[in-house]
């Protein structure tokens, strides 16, 4: 007779085996408590949805970027300039994340680009499920580019994969050249670093090489672009990268 549940059926099956095969059984322990091993990543649910998003984008040949930065680094201006310079070469879709207001969405919609606003209210980051739900209603076309502008925050969004192809971290030259060292998790998780507001360099004590060196300490493989989103300088190289990614 089975020593675990008292039946005859599983007489040759040990307890671990039953778990493996998903066979329902009782646990009998002297204390009345059972130690259940779980050994699961706490973010596994988010990561699973992110992979699902990634698969969806891949199947539809949608190039998806997750743009992160501190508040006020110029994410929306960077998007506006990118959309202007692409000049309808690719269909662009945007998801905007902010705690409150649809100000950024209004700016993107003014360029005739479909845009969906997520207001996280008390939340400090976007997660994969928010993107999953937003993509359902935004319905980005095949072969398009989807930009996700994350909540302005260099801490929390670092841990949450959204299913993007590339993560872009934006830093403006006014923020302090040691920012990559102060917020290393975000700079480590990004693929591309856009250094914005370079038109202000003559007025401030900032050195682009210093920013790059600091970023390379946390991420030796980082790809850099130096731009001014408002003046348009340096944007050509970034647009070339988009062309390259779209032609792959």
């Amino acid at each position, binding site marked *: 007779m089975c020593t675990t549940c008292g039946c005859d059926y599983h007489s040759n099956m040990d307890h671990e085996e039953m778990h493996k095969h998903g066979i329902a059984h009782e646990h009998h322990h002297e204390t009345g408590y059972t130690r259940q091993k779980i050994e699961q990543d*706490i973010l596994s649910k988010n990561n699973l949805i992110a992979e699902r998003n990634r698969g969806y984008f891949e199947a539809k040949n949608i190039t998806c970027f997750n743009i992160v930065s501190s508040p006020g680094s110029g994410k929306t201006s960077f998007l506006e300039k990118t959309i202007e310079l692409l000049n309808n070469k690719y269909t662009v879709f945007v998801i905007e994340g902010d705690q409150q207001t649809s100000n950024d969405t209004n700016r993107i919609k003014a360029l005739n680009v479909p845009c969906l606003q997520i207001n996280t209210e008390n939340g400090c980051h976007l997660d994969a499920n928010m993107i999953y739900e937003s993509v359902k209603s935004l319905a980005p076309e095949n072969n398009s580019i989807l930009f996700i502008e994350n909540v302005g925050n260099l801490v929390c969004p670092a841990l949450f994969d959204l299913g993007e192809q590339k993560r872009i971290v934006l830093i403006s030259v006014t923020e302090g050249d040691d920012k990559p060292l102060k917020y290393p998790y975000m700079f480590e998780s990004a693929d591309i670093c856009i250094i914005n507001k370079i038109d202000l360099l003559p007025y401030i004590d900032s050195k682009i090489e210093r920013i790059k060196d600091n970023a390379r300490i946390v991420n030796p493989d980082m790809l850099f672009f130096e731009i001014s989103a408002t003046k348009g300088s340096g944007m050509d190289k970034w647009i070339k990268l988009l062309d390259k990614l779209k032609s792959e």
Partner: protein
Amino acid sequence: MHELSIALSIVELAAKEAHKENAKEVKEIELEIGEMAGIDTEALLFSLRIAIKHSLLENAEIKLHLISPIAYCSKCRIEFVPQNRFEPCPFCHSYGIELRQGKELRLKSLLIE
């Protein structure tokens, strides 16, 4: 303050697993958190105590094990204990070391009734 969403994920995952086992109550929840996972453990514990309310985990004791970091330099092929996440290799001084341990965010086990 992403610790609150992490806490909610923990409770969701733990409650799902406890339901699978037809648990009446979870007496203890055991977590493994890497010292370099980007988590403030005080904030996580604070958030967890709120997040477990009105769930199977309401009376659960929270056991949090901190996992100390181990880094690996692929050039020197040695492991060392880094003091911070982005420390260079103490031998060749190159950056871009691999963190082999210390980034864990894991629900290890549940003690269920």
